[in-house]
C-alpha cells in the first residue's frame, strides 16, 4: 500500500483543561472509504477539525498527503462538508457553487463544467438557478455535498453527509462515493447511520477520545461476535 492520505498518530487534543482526544491512531489510504462512528461528544468533529488544520494538535502528529497539518495550500485538495449546510441563503445554488469553487482555486475556464458536473451528481441541475432560501432541507444538504465534490479533490472529508436525505438519494450518493473510491480518491466520513458504516472499507469506532477499534466492518463484527456494526457500537459502548 502506498503512502496514507490521512495519517493520525497518537493524536491528542485538549481545549483548556478538557481533554477531547486522548490517543487517536487513524489512517486513510488511497482509494479507501473510512467511516468514523461513535456517540455524540466522542470527538468525531474534533478529529475532522484537526485533520483540516482548523485546530492544532496538543500531542502526536496529524499528517495529510504526507504533510503536517495545518497547511493552507493542502486545503485545495480536500473537499469538506460540515454538519451544518453552510450555504449563502440569498445566493442561488449556482452562485454558491461558483463562489466556493473560486475559493478552492478552480480555474475560471473549468468552472462551468465543474459546477454542472457536481450538480448532476447530487441531482440539483434543475434547481441550480433558484435561491437557496427556497430550497428544502434535503436540497440544501445535496448542495452542500456538491460543494465538497467541487474540483475533484483527492480527499473528501464528510461530516454526516446523509442526514435529512431520502433513501433513494442516499443510495445515489453512496454510489457516487463508491465511484470516487474506485478512482483512487479517499473519503473520511462520519455517520450515525449504521448501515452506512457497513459500506465503508474500514470503520473506526471512537469512544471517549480513543479509537476503540479500527478494522473492516466484517472483521469488527467477528471481533465483537455480533452480526451488525450497530451491535458492535452498542457492545463497545456497553463494555466501556
Amino acid at each position, binding site marked *: 500500500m502506498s503512502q496514507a492520505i490521512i495519517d493520525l498518530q497518537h493524536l491528542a487534543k485538549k481545549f483548556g483543561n478538557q481533554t477531547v482526544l486522548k490517543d487517536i491512531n487513524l489512517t486513510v489510504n488511497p482509494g479507501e472509504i473510512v467511516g468514523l462512528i461513535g456517540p455524540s461528544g466522542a470527538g468525531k468533529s474534533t478529529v475532522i477539525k484537526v485533520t483540516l488544520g482548523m485546530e492544532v494538535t496538543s500531542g502526536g502528529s496529524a499528517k495529510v498527503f504526507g504533510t503536517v497539518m495545518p497547511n493552507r495550500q493542502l486545503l485545495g485538495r480536500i473537499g469538506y462538508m460540515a454538519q*451544518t449546510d453552510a450555504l449563502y441563503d440569498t445566493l442561488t445554488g449556482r452562485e454558491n457553487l461558483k463562489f466556493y469553487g473560486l475559493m478552492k482555486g478552480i480555474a475560471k475556464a473549468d468552472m462551468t463544467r465543474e459546477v454542472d458536473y457536481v450538480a448532476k451528481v447530487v441531482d440539483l441541475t434543475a434547481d441550480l438557478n433558484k435561491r437557496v432560501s427556497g430550497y428544502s432541507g434535503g436540497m440544501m444538504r445535496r448542495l452542500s455535498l456538491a460543494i465538497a465534490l467541487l474540483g475533484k479533490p483527492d480527499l473528501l472529508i464528510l461530516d454526516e453527509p446523509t442526514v435529512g436525505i431520502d433513501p433513494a438519494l442516499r443510495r445515489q450518493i453512496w454510489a457516487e462515493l463508491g465511484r470516487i473510491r474506485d478512482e483512487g480518491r479517499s473519503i473520511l466520513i462520519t455517520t450515525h447511520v449504521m448501515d452506512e458504516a457497513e459500506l465503508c472499507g474500514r470503520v473506526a469506532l471512537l469512544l471517549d477520545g480513543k479509537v476503540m477499534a479500527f478494522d473492516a466492518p466484517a472483521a469488527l463484527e467477528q471481533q465483537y461476535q455480533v452480526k451488525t456494526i450497530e451491535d458492535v457500537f452498542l457492545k463497545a459502548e456497553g463494555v466501556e
Partner: protein
Amino acid sequence: MRTIGIMNRVLKELFRDKRTLALMFLAPILIMLLMSVIFNTNSSTDVSIGTISVSHKLNQQMADIKHVTVKTYDTKSAAKKALKNEKIDAIVKKNGSNYSLTYANTDSTKTATVKLAFKNALTATSINQLKSALTKSTKATVKLQAQLQAIQKQQAAATASAKAGSAATAAQQATSTKATSTTMATKSTSQKTPKITNHYVYGDKDTGYFAKMLPILMGFFVFFFVFLISGMALLKERTTGTLDRLLATPVKRSSIVFGYMLSYGVLAVIQTILIVLVTVWLLGIEVVGNMASVIVINLILALVALAFGILLSTFANSEFQMMQFIPLVIVPQVFFSGIIPLDSMAAWVKDISYIIPIKYAGDAVTDIIMRGTSIWHLGFDIGILLIFLVVLTVLNIVGLKRYRKV
C-alpha cells in the same frame, strides 16, 4: 482574486437583502428629512417681542419683519410677567443708547429669530439714519469743515450727557444711534454700535448648534450602520458555518478581511454620497470645502467601523448579543464625538474622546464643511483614523486564527 470573489459575494448578498439596504440608505435620509422638517419649521416660527422704551422707528422696523410681532410695555415687570407666561419670547429694553435683550430661550430657534430680527431692525434703522444724514451732509458739502467742528462739539456734549444719564452702563461706548450722533459718525469714521447685552432665561447662546452637529451626525450614520451590518454579516457567517467552510478552502485569512472591506467600502461610498447630497439639498447646509474630501473621510471612517464591527462580532454569539454592543460602543461614540462640546468636560473625561474614531472623522469633516479646509491639511485626523484602521484590520486577520490555525 479570491478577495474580489469574496467582495462580489458579499455585495450580491447585500443587494439582495432589500430591507437591510433600505435601512442603510433610507433610514439616514428619513432621519435627516425629519430633522430638516422639524428644524426648518421652527426657524420660521412666529415670535413676539416685548419692548420697553424702544424708539418707535425700531419697533416699526421689527414689526415689519415676517413672523415678528412687537408688543410695547411700559415697565420691566410687566414685560417680565408676559415673558414668564409665554406671551412673548423676548424682551428688548433700551438703557440709554444700549440694548438689553432677555430671551425665554426655551426654543433655540425662536431665540435665533429674535436675535436676527433685532439685529436687522437695528441695522435698517441706522442705515435709514445714515442715508438721511448723508443727504444732509452732501447738501452741506461747502460748509463741511464748519459742520464737522460743530459736530465734534456735539459729540463731546452727547458723551457727557450720556455719562450723566446712565452711570451704571458702559458710558464710554454710548453714542451713535441717535440721529445727531450718527451724522457725526459718518464723518468721523469711529462709529460705535450700541452695546447689546443678551440674557437667557434658560440655557445659553450655545443651546442650538444643529449646524455644528451635522458633519458629526453624517459620520455617525456611516459608522453606526456599517458597524452593525458588517458585524451581523460576519456573525451570520460564523453561526451558519460558512466561515468554517470558507476557511476549509485555501483562502487566506487576509483575503476574507479585505474582501469584506472592499464590499463595505463600496457600500459606504454610496451611503456617504447619499447622505451628503441629502444634507446639501434637503437641509440646505453649505459645504464650503470639497465634497470629495468629505466622502474620503467618511470612507475611512466606514472602514474603521467595519473592522470594529467584525472584531466585536467575534465576541457575540447571537444577533441579540451583537445588538448589546450598541449601548456599549455606539452610544459613547455619540457622547464623545463632539456633538456635546468637550470643552466643558473634566480633563479626564475629555481624554476618553481621544480613543473615539468618530471624533477624528467629525473634526475633519467639520473643518471641510464649515471652514473649507483642504484634505491635505487634515493629516492628523486622517492619520489617527488610518492607525485605527490598520490596528483593527491586523487584529481581525490574526483573530481569524481562532477558526483556522493557518
